[in-house]
């Protein structure tokens, strides 16, 4: 009988801090290989279809960027929340509300055209996401209500609201009864970056810019310091005069606005109209992206590309091997599990202990680093 024992490191390990996402990815691959083998598919064939083929041509890289853009945009916002110990898990709903607010112009005022349309739509999208995120923030600060549960419940409400809009008041009268709005006009469509090479649009640029801005905010500005202090020790933050309630609002509004921007970019760029379902769970997958990227905006860019690949790979194995594209969700879930598990290595040393050796005198002799005890 063996048992795990955690020994606290005197300080966080820089080595494992850098390595843990890679270890997690490697473990995911191993677990994925076992899963494919169980499904009766040669793991090498499956991995080739899943991870290599979807990014072997230039136009496919554009598809990757389309999928990665919303993930990165949402995840950099969430990283600020999680650093501040604010648990916004309703980004999916804020994404939807951003899409709805941004679509007000092309759906209700289709005759309004010109270069002003797009910036206004993007702005409205950010406002929509922020407004929707303000609800759990308000309930948290005013009534002390758990933000995890309220932000999540509001996702279901947002999905149903969008469903009502596109089946009811916003339905395209010439759409043959399909639940969708009219196609957006030309000036309401987010332009493609390199139309000759592929479909990737400006959404990806927004994502990169947002990542850099948030990185500057978190590492170079007082506000970022405030976020980190309040997140790791609210008491210390209070002594420093930082407002906890203001921080909850700041984190929610910022992440909501970015999720809203992602929503309107997706609708205006990749889809071109509102439909009952506009997201394959970007808001939830972005939670994984945020953690895989170690809550660091630049790490999140890399993590966003990896998770975008899991979406493309899922579609690829579905069409090539007939495996459900739910396999993507499984990969994403496993990845998050392994990342969280590997993060333990940053703060702790893991030892496997045989039960026979845990007797007090034996343990004392075997302790390799008695200094650690004093450090504690």
């Amino acid at each position, binding site marked *: 009988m063996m048992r*795990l024992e*955690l020994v*606290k490191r005197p300080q966080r390990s820089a080595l494992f801090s850098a390595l843990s996402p890679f270890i997690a990815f490697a473990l995911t691959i191993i677990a994925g290989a076992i899963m494919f083998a169980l499904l009766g598919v040669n793991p090498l064939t499956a991995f080739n279809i899943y991870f290599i083929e979807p990014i072997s041509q230039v136009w496919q890289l554009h598809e990757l960027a389309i999928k990665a853009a919303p993930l990165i945009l949402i995840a950099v916002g969430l990283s600020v929340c*999680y650093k501040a110990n604010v*648990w916004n*898990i309703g980004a999916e709903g804020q994404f939807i509300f951003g899409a709805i607010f941004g679509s007000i112009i092309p759906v209700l005022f289709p005759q309004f055209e010109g270069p002003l349309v797009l910036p206004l739509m993007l702005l409205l999208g950010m406002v929509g996401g922020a407004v929707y995120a303000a609800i759990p923030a308000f*309930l948290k600060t005013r*009534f*002390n*209500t*758990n933000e*995890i*549960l*309220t932000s*999540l*419940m*509001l996702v*279901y*409400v947002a999905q*149903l*609201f969008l*469903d*009502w809009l596109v*089946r*009811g008041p916003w339905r395209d009268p010439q759409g043959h009864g399909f639940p969708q709005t009219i196609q957006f006009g030309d000036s309401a469509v987010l332009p493609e970056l390199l139309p000759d090479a592929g479909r990737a649009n400006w959404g990806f640029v927004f994502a990169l810019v947002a990542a850099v801005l948030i990185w500057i905010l978190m590492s170079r500005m007082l506000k970022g310091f405030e976020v980190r202090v309040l997140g790791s020790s609210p008491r210390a933050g209070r002594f420093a005069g930082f407002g906890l309630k203001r921080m909850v609002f700041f984190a929610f509004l910022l992440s909501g606005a970015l999720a809203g921007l992602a929503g309107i970019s997706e609708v205006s760029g990749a889809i071109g109209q509102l439909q009952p379902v506009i997201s394959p769970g970007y808001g*939830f*997958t972005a*939670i*994984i992206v945020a*953690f895989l990227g170690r809550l660091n905006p630049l790490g999140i860019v890399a993590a966003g590309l990896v998770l975008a690949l899991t979406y493309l790979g899922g579609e690829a194995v579905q069409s090539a091997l007939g*495996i*459900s594209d*739910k*396999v*993507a*969700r*499984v*990969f*994403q*879930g*496993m990845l*998050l*599990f392994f990342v*969280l*598990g590997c*993060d*333990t290595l940053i703060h*702790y040393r*893991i030892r496997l202990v045989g039960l026979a050796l845990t007797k007090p005198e034996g*343990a004392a002799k075997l302790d390799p680093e008695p200094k650690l005890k004093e450090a*504690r």
Partner: protein
Amino acid sequence: MDITVNILLTIATAATPLLIAAIGELVVERSGVLNLGVEGMMIMGAVGGFGVSYLTGSPWIGLLAAIAMGAVFSLLFAVMTLSLATNQVATGLSLTLLGLGLSGMMGTSFVGQPGERLPNLDIPGLTSIPVIGRLLFGQDPIFYISIALTAAVTWFLFKTRTGLTLRSIGDSHTSAHALGIKVIRYRYLSVIFGGACAGLAGGHLSLVYTPQWVENMTAGRGWIALALVVFASWRPWRVLAGAYIFGAIWVGQLHVQAINLQDFVDAPWVIYKVIAFLKSFPSQLLSSLPYLATVVVLVLISRNKRLTMMNTPASLGQPFVPDR
């Protein structure tokens, strides 16, 4: 009279999975662990229960499989948060995400297959008593389990020494550890119990409530169960009350969506008007009522900060690493 009985029966059926999942989570949280993976464990129980019932032809074996599935899946969370001291919020979330994905993949071949429903209790002589017969002696077996479970958990937590120990761990794991209590072992068992309950709740969905497999069929019930624990301020009988209120809301909105206004022309004027008023709302608004009600209830209950602080297990959600 018959309609009233029928409505009460459907409310009980809708409330049972909420009640079971919430009672399980209540024990977990009383031990100081916050497992946000209820939705994931529930959906795994649902797919496991349906799958095994479909393959073996016996919903009873399916029921056992649902329980086992939830328990095994929760073990994953236990190893991560208890042995590796990971962040409980993030780990619970990932359990939910993984469960939703895994169940979708495992259930692909079950979509659209007819399932077999667990039979209702039928005691000759008793079940046929008018009105109370069907309510007391004619429901599905899991309904009786859910009531017994509530009573048993109440007794265990508040009347036994082990229950007292469990609550003490939830309030201060460091003190409990200093007293020589095996904190991690207690928490492992609590988490697995919670998982088994969530699995059973999922099994109820796919073996009783709608005996078939539909992707994402839990539809947020796991999250509502989590909210119920807060709503009930960590007390089992209040969980029961909350589960029945939510069951009523869930069933009520479905009934309003399903009924035909024309059938009520002969009903009393007030009833006709009320139904017409409710029918005038879009169906999506009615569908979102359970979720909106959850938010409202959470706001009402957490408004009183002192009361919440008093009831919440003090070390809820904090990782614990025993120092030797």
